[in-house]
């Protein structure tokens, strides 16, 4: 049987980088084919070639046995290739039908008017194959993310797509929504549509796909039959080595470093009291929106307290902005690195030094030799790669940007480090580096707070966990009592809440969270 889609020796190079090297694989009609790999493995480049955004440097793509050379995305679309992007590309205030016909509206009177009614009828027809509950005349903004994804699939069907490539389709879906998507995908496959399914989530790929291609460093490492391999094998192939299950090490001392008393804020925090010891890693768990991030922002001086007090080394503090908190020895490694962490165009060394430029200056001038020496030291210590101090930070991977932000607080000699989702958008490899770094910092006597949605991460790192619910501390769990079920039980409001919709990580091998 002719494969529906065939990649033959696809290579793509950009100036200075080989993004793809000699990638070949087939996808059969109706096959659901996984595409796995770490960030930067080349998955996105391959999808962009498939969808006509890039042209391969060498190699050929075949659709139904015929060589195709897409010059622009429209060519790929015309050949029956549909892409469903992670960030849905829809216009919020237009209707479902209008979005589905975006770019090639049905018109009458020689193209003067859009035939709304006919568009809606055709949209309803396409959607009826997958989801009958969506009203084609409803504005897209009134739909949930999961439904909007279904609309994108409907649009692909409208285009008579033979291949649908989905890039991280479930990054913002709840587990029950995922089940629904899985059904839709299965029915598409039965009707002969081939699916390329890109995800970082192992369990999903195993559940949905029959075979998966595994990529690493722009090369195809293996094509596996998912029924015959284990998740651990697949991870090992993706990362190129085995990930060790690691023990938790504790360096807690009796010295109280920070004491928070009855903290309240206008940003959801109510009456939160706790202590943080020297050398301790304190985990904070809770649902999204429970006030975890807000608590860190209070401690870092980003938001203001409305009541309560924070004392460090027994001395009461009053923070009116982050400068005050930094002076008191607190550093925040924020969740949204792009928005709150990095100055994208500036060199990584400058990004590292930003919070302590004063200490690198004398007479109003920056002492470059001193700055340089410190950058050498600290960025070596956090294992920055590539080790290019003058390179703008935006050109580094998420993990390396994160390392630079951590180094920023080492340069500022912060004693208390606050991590908000420390490994969000970071590769598996860099993730374990960050874990080690956090552990090393604790060993050296830093006090650390880690907020994370990933329960395995919280449990791996924490000496003690505060569970936050609706802005209050719902429970404090000691290391020996720590388990995912214990945390979940306290995190969810009400005794029998719908755990399905709780956006807290399932116990799954979660290779990468959505950036």
């Amino acid at each position, binding site marked *: 049987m002719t494969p529906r889609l065939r990649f033959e020796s696809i290579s793509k190079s950009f100036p200075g980088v080989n993004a793809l090297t000699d990638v070949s694989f087939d996808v059969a009609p109706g096959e659901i084919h996984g595409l796995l790999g770490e960030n930067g493995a080349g998955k996105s480049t391959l999808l962009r070639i498939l969808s006509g955004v890039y042209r391969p440097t060498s190699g050929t793509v075949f659709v139904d046995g015929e060589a195709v050379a897409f010059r622009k995305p429209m060519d790929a679309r015309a050949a029956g290739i549909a892409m469903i992007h992670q960030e849905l590309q829809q216009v919020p205030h237009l209707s479902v039908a209008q979005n589905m016909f975006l770019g090639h509206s049905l018109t009458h009177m020689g193209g003067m008017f859009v035939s709304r009614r006919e568009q809606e009828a055709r949209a309803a027809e396409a959607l009826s194959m997958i989801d009958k509950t969506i009203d084609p005349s409803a504005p897209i903004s009134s739909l949930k993310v999961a439904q909007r994804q279904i609309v994108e699939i409907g649009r692909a069907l409208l285009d008579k797509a033979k291949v649908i490539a989905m890039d991280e389709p479930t990054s913002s879906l709840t587990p029950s929504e995922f089940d629904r998507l899985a059904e839709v995908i299965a029915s598409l496959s039965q009707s002969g549509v081939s699916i390329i399914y890109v995800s970082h989530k192992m369990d999903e790929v195993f559940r949905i796909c029959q075979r998966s291609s595994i990529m690493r460093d722009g090369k195809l490492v293996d094509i596996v039959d998912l029924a015959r391999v284990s998740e651990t094998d697949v991870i090992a192939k993706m990362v190129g080595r085995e990930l060790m299950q690691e023990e938790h090490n504790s360096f807690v001392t009796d010295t109280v470093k920070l004491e928070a008393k009855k903290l309240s804020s206008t940003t959801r925090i109510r009456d939160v009291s706790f202590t943080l010891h020297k050398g301790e890693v304190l985990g904070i768990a809770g649902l999204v929106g429970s006030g975890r991030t807000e608590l860190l922002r209070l401690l870092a001086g980003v938001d203001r307290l409305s009541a309560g007090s924070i004392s460090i080394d027994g001395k009461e503090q009053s923070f009116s902005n982050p400068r005050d908190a930094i002076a008191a020895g607190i550093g*925040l490694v924020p969740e949204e690195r792009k928005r*709150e962490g990095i*100055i994208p165009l*500036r060199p990584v060394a400058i990004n590292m030094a*930003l919070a302590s430029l004063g200490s690198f200056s004398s007479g109003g001038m920056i002492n470059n030799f001193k700055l340089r020496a410190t950058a050498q030291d600290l960025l070596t210590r956090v294992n920055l790669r590539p*080790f290019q101090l003058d390179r703008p930070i935006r050109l580094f991977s998420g993990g390396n940007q994160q390392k630079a932000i951590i180094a920023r607080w080492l340069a500022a000699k912060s004693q208390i480090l606050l991590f908000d989702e420390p490994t969000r958008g970071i590769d598996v490899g860099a993730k374990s*580096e960050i874990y080690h770094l956090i552990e090393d910092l604790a060993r050296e006597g830093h006090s650390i707070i880690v907020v994370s949605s990933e329960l395995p991460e919280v449990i791996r790192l924490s000496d003690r966990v505060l569970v936050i619910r609706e802005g209050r501390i719902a429970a404090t769990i000691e290391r020996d009592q720590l388990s995912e079920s214990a945390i979940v039980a306290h995190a969810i409001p009400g005794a029998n809440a719908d755990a399905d919709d709780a956006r807290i990580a399932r116990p799954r091998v979660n290779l990468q969270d959505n950036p």
Partner: protein
Amino acid sequence: MTSTSNAPATSAPTFRRFSFSLRDAGTLIGLIVIMAVFAALVPGFISERNLVNILQQSSINACLALGMTLVIISGGIDLSVGPTAAISAVVTASLLVAGTPIPLAILAGLGVGVLCGLINGGLVAYVGLQPFIVTLGTLSTYRAIALIYTGGNPVLGIPPGFRSLFNGNLFGIPTPVLIVAVVAIAAWILLKKTPIGEYLMAVGGNEEAAYVAGVPIARTKITAYVISGGLAALASLILIGRLGAAEPILGNLWELDAIAAAAIGGASLMGGKGSILGTILGAIILGAMRNGLTLMNVQAFYQLLATGLIILVAMMIDRATRGRE
């Protein structure tokens, strides 16, 4: 963590003291092309005398554009430079005419510019208004103050001592050119070598991140507007030195030339990016264009057209060479 962690120690990259960026090279090439075209079309364009002329004619705009560059890097814009210059000019001229010692009058004039900048900066940083709106408001306000102060009449009779200071020669080079050269070097040092420069780029590049990292946001922004106001005042002193009179309507549309020079030189109106050298080259490009077209007896209307087109072409080349991001 085995091989990589040892590598950096051996391959420690040396710090580049003077970096001549690719973008600046592009601006320089643009200037050379324009000079070459005029050299071919206009006899005497490349003569030493005319080149000095071009620098002198560019000096006022370059002075303003340096301040504008710092403001743009900080993520703002200063539309009020022309009227700021006007207030400063009429105040300085009135003081001089009234017999105030020259150094004192100069200080007062610069002080007025700094004050105008302080008001702009305060409204942006503390009241939280958008820079475009703030300086659009002060554009009218400052102009009105200059007109009200003088009753709309020019201030005449600026003493020769002052004029020779701002319109003289030193070692055969016009003093305005020297003044602007000194300002440019100072601005370059500020941007490249001081924490304030880094703060400007950080605030313009990502204000939220700069705040979390402890950068003094308000102080940084105000500094940019104060410098811009001060340099607008300095530019006005150069102008009244040349003219011998201060008109309350002077500096009309100066802000546009200054923004154009900064943008041609690589400043991004999104903030976080800009080059002192580039801005100077940008100002010289605009000056050379005008000089060349005037020597060719091209009508003013067409000169305006050429200026507009050169800005658009420069930005298109910039866009095309930067690639998609």
